[in-house]
């Protein structure tokens, strides 16, 4: 039986096990939408802006570990996804983006709603395709999903001209993938693994620095085993939060620009830095030459380009993090005369414990105005780490990372690499679609939330009960903080003079709205908001000039921290 390209696409999505699609229709993809009702297993969520669609697909992917799918039309539909594509690319998130394209005879003629999205997206996708013949469609979709989720995951875009969607062919889904040019290396090199165990045996001040790769390779269990068994303290990047239980005494918190004192000091003094699935981003390393100055560095990463990109590495292991950590465990298990790890690392653990005790994360409580850190703490207290937390970008993001604890991977979704304001709310929608029964909370700022607030309509129309907690300080807070500290308090263009009334805004969309101005009311109102069955905004009026501390000024050494 012959099918149109549009039907072939939808059949492929079924074969890939897709359940949810986030999209927005248009002329170029109208054929796909025409056939969509024939596939009730594919749930489509109509967003209000294509950026919302791609972030929702991304949030779905981060929360589930599966490939997120986003479907948009040609031209502006396609270009509106670029920010979200770059966001997914920087954080290595598997997403397949289906874009419509003008009919092939019109390509290059500046046709209505035509844009070279394959060209535009090239620098920020793992790979992309323009499908020119309906016969190629099935294998391209198969490859797209395979590329998105294997190796170092990432976004893959498929551009579909309208005439290809209308052309007919016999649908056959290829069984196997064979790509001579793409074979990611997943298994660790045995000799390198042996070197790591040797270094572990000699080290007296080891430190694990874990990143998003631990989460994307589902290696949290292996990481936790290694650190607990060998008594190694753990710090992680923003992207790595949740891979190691946040209530474990070995947990030091995040490192880097807004990392904890203990984590940054530990990096400064470790003799063996075990970097797992992390890429030495500049927000993490600070001044490169002072980063882990006395350490041998082991770097495990599935992507060879990550290794020695920023720092020199003594033992590189190009492998899937999970397989590499399992390899280390197996090697340790056959190793004779291992030291008693508690003994071997005792003075180091004492030192680290002292740093933790002497300089914990702190803030000064006040009843009114409310301190934003207090709100985040309350959210954690009420949810006990069982919620999925997403964030926007800026101070709200850093406080969420600092003052919540994360016990499980895929419970903290945030735009780490690109730092995309407007990410958190649509991402929360995506996560909530995947886990309808979980509590999903977007911790937001008053600036960021306005970048994709239109998705409130999506949340309300599908009754997606995401809760937004706005830490409303009336500023673009992080930039204001930089202006205060490094630009002589010249608060140029960071004051949000005219914020909307967020309570009324929520109500206008048909959601619930709450406002809190006193610390004593925070718990009660959060409970109330979390208990209602639909989406809600909690507008928390917080101290306008509260800063995120500790802080390492850009380009300084990690051990040069501004503590308060």
């Amino acid at each position, binding site marked *: 039986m012959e099918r149109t390209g549009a039907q072939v696409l939808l059949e492929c999505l079924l074969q890939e096990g897709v359940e949810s699609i986030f999209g927005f229709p248009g002329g170029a993809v109208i054929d796909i939408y025409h056939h969509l009702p024939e596939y009730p297993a594919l749930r489509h969520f109509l967003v209000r802006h294509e950026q919302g669609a791609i972030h929702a697909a991304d949030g779905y992917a981060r929360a589930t570990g599966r490939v997120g799918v986003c479907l948009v039309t040609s031209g502006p539909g396609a270009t509106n996804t670029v920010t979200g594509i770059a966001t997914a690319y920087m954080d290595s998130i598997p997403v397949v983006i289906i874009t419509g394209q003008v009919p092939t005879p019109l390509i290059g003629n500046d046709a209505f709603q035509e844009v070279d999205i394959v*060209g535009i997206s*090239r620098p920020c996708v793992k790979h992309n395709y*323009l499908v020119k013949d309906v016969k190629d469609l099935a294998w391209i979709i198969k490859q797209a999903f395979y590329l998105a989720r294997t190796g170092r995951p990432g976004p893959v875009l498929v551009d579909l001209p309208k005439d290809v969607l209308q052309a007919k062919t016999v649908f056959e889904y290829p069984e196997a993938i064979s790509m001579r040019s*793409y074979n990611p290396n997943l298994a660790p090199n045995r000799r390198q693994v042996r070197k790591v165990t040797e270094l572990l045996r000699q080290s007296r001040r080891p430190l694990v620095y874990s990143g998003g790769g631990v989460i994307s390779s589902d290696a949290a269990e292996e990481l936790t085993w290694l650190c607990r068994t060998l008594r190694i303290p753990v710090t992680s990047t923003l992207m790595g939060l949740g891979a190691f239980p946040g209530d474990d005494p070995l947990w030091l918190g995040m490192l880097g620009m807004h990392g904890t004192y203990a984590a940054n000091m530990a990096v400064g003094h470790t003799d063996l830095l075990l970097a797992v699935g992390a890429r030495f981003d500049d927000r993490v390393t600070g001044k490169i030459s002072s980063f882990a100055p006395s350490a041998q560095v082991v770097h495990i990463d599935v992507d060879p380009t990550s290794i020695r990109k920023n720092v020199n590495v003594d033992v590189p292991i190009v492998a899937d993090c999970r397989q590499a950590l399992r390899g280390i465990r197996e090697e340790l298990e056959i190793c004779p005369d291992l030291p008693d790890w508690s003994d071997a690392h005792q003075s180091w653990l004492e030192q680290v414990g002292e740093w933790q005790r002497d300089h914990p994360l702190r803030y000064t409580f006040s009843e009114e105005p409310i301190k934003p850190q207090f709100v985040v703490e309350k959210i954690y207290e009420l949810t006990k780490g069982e919620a999925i937390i997403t964030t926007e970008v800026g101070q709200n993001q850093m406080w969420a990372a600092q003052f919540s604890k994360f016990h499980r991977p895929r419970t903290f979704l945030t735009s780490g690499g690109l730092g995309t304001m407007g990410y958190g709310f649509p991402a929360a929608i995506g996560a909530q679609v995947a886990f309808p029964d979980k509590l999903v909370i977007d911790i937001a700022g008053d600036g960021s939330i306005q970048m994709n607030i239109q998705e409130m309509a999506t949340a309300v129309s599908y009754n997606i009960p995401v809760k937004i907690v706005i830490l409303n300080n009336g500023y673009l807070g992080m930039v204001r903080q930089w202006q205060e500290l490094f630009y002589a308090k010249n608060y140029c263009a960071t004051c949000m003079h005219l914020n909307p009334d967020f309570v009324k805004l929520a109500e206008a969309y048909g959601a619930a709205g709450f406002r809190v101005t006193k610390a004593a009311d925070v718990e009660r109102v959060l409970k109330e908001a979390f208990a209602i069955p639909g989406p809600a905004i909690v507008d928390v009026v917080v101290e306008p000039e509260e800063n995120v501390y500790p802080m390492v000024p850009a380009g300084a050494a990690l051990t040069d921290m501004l503590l308060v």
Partner: protein
Amino acid sequence: MRHVLSVLVENEPGVLSRVVGLFSGRGFNIETLNVGPTLEDGLSLMTITTSGEEQIIEQITKQLRKLVTVVKVVDLTHLQSVEREMVLIKVNAEDERRAEVLRIADIFRCKVVDVSGNDLTLEITGDQGKIRAIVSLLQRFGIKEFARTGTVAMRRSMQVD
């Protein structure tokens, strides 16, 4: 340091811009770039000359390998290899100086591929040093037009110390 990279790629639309975009997007430098199909259907060979410190070159080769359409990357710099470039030079050659130009052409084993009353067009192949030498010799006659292919290179079969 100058490096010569031999890059085998899938011959499909956009592959050149993927490679070039990688260089420009990451601030790497391309000195010359040459592309042509291979004998195997669907594959093309690029020869790219670039320069940078070892760590940069390592990044370039790794980033190239990471592109889905790149099959193989070989850095020929530390191997013995044959390197050639072809250049067309249109040089002033009025009657009284024509013999001299032809003599130089002969010494460099150039071919004369076009001739007119006032100029000669020469075809030269060779490595960079030879090209530089003949260009500097011909410059005093006046070079009217100049076109070069960029380097093509191949690993030598025998790697003799």
